[in-house]
């Protein structure tokens, strides 16, 4: 290419340029490959007539810049043409959206609303939360290494299917893992013989309740069938012993929370995931949040800005580790 007596160099450069042409989209290549190669060959021939190292260098630089810019441009043109809404029908457009939505809401995250005050202090009535479904889902031996999986620990807030009625989802804090011995004394949790100091809890007892505060004594009127089963089979020496593959959970609003004290353990398989963040918090009564009504919709429409708790927006509910004080007995 530098001199006319060197046709092999020209041929080599032309072959190299042919390879570079693969950067262009297929349609463009099919249409213009031959004339582009021809033009390149012509330019090489021109250069061979008036050789010079700087000319060669400038030519190479020019061709490379031309190649890079226009290949990117043609690719972008193909890409944006493919994304034109007119090119896809209404149905395919929505099918894609719905598929992504279904995938995301069934495997990645799920939206819930907190209807009761049992976690007050951490989560308020009317907090709309997204639950991370991956965090606690056992992904099997392979996924364990790729997915952000971690085992459930004491102090984690979990969302789970209420064991007595799996149509309902509850959010509570994990107090006992399998093997842990749990009891309550004057409203304070004693786990494995150590008194827990739980700064995240709220005690607003309107009345004393021995069942609630000094658990487990004996089944009460609020104890459900699986709660009775817990009393019958898992109480040893005045303590509940959490069986394998079960969790003992309590609400942070300790004096006003229907939790493991009343309905027993949460099977590990019932755990849905980990509350990820509060995406919207709206001040509304429990009833409106549990059952959708026209009145509630109107209320939201009229008072959206006033009743939205903006300070709770995008709040992340945290796992909190209870401090363990010394021995309780």
């Amino acid at each position, binding site marked *: 290419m530098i001199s006319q007596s060197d046709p092999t160099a020209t041929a080599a450069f032309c072959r190299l340029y042919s390879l570079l042409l693969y950067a262009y989209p297929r349609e463009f290549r099919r249409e213009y490959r031959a*004339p582009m190669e021809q033009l390149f060959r012509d*330019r090489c021939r021109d250069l061979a007539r008036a050789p010079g190292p700087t000319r060669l260098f400038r030519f190479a630089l020019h061709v490379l810049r031309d190649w890079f*810019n226009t*290949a990117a441009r043609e690719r972008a043109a193909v890409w944006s043409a493919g994304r034109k809404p007119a090119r896809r029908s209404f149905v395919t457009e929505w099918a894609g959206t719905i598929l992504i939505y279904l995938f995301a809401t069934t495997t990645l995250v799920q939206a819930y609303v907190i209807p009761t005050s049992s976690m007050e202090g951490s989560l308020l009535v009317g907090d709309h939360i997204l639950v991370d479904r991956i965090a606690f889902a056992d992904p099997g031996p392979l996924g364990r290494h790729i997915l952000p999986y971690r085992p459930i620990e004491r102090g984690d807030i979990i969302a789970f299917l209420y064991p007595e009625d799996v149509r309902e989802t509850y959010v509570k804090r994990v107090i006992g893992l399998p093997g842990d011995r749990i009891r309550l004394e004057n409203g304070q949790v004693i786990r494995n013989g150590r008194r827990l100091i739980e700064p995240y809890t709220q005690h607003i007892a309107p009345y004393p309740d021995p069942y609630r505060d000094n658990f487990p004594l004996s089944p009460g009127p609020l104890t459900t069938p699986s709660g009775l089963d817990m009393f019958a089979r898992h109480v040893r020496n005045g303590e509940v012993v959490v069986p394998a593959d079960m969790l003992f959970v309590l609400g942070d609003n300790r004096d006003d929370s229907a939790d493991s004290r009343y309905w027993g353990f949460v099977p590990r398989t019932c755990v849905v995931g980990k509350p990820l963040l509060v995406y919207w918090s709206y001040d509304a009564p429990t009833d409106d949040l549990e059952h959708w009504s026209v009145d509630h919709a109107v209320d939201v429409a009229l008072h959206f800005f006033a009743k939205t708790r903006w300070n709770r927006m995008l709040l992340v509910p945290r796992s909190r580790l209870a401090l363990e004080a010394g021995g309780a007995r």
Partner: protein
Amino acid sequence: MKKTRPPEELLPLTPPVFHILLALAGGELHGYGIMQDVARQTGGALQLGPGTLYGCLKRMLAAHLVEESDERPDPALDDQRRRYYRMTALGKRVVRAEAQRLAGAVTAAMARLAGEIA
């Protein structure tokens, strides 16, 4: 769908498109001919690389500014691989409108800068 749009809609032209149209004003040319003519017009300032040239021609074909010609005007240089292009009537009107626009811009610039240059 040969809808003739007013030439003003396509203005301003990019420099490569403008100079390619000017090159074709003199008659049909193939790619290499266009490239040489553009370099001559601009005193070597604008060297069209293969990607730029054929990318522009593709868009100009789509806009009906140029069309491919079946005739082989220069049998001596003919080569089956060479494609010849010629300007359409729309292309002629568009390049004329662009030249007028540029002339207007130059006149305005001269009037503004007259004092400074003098």
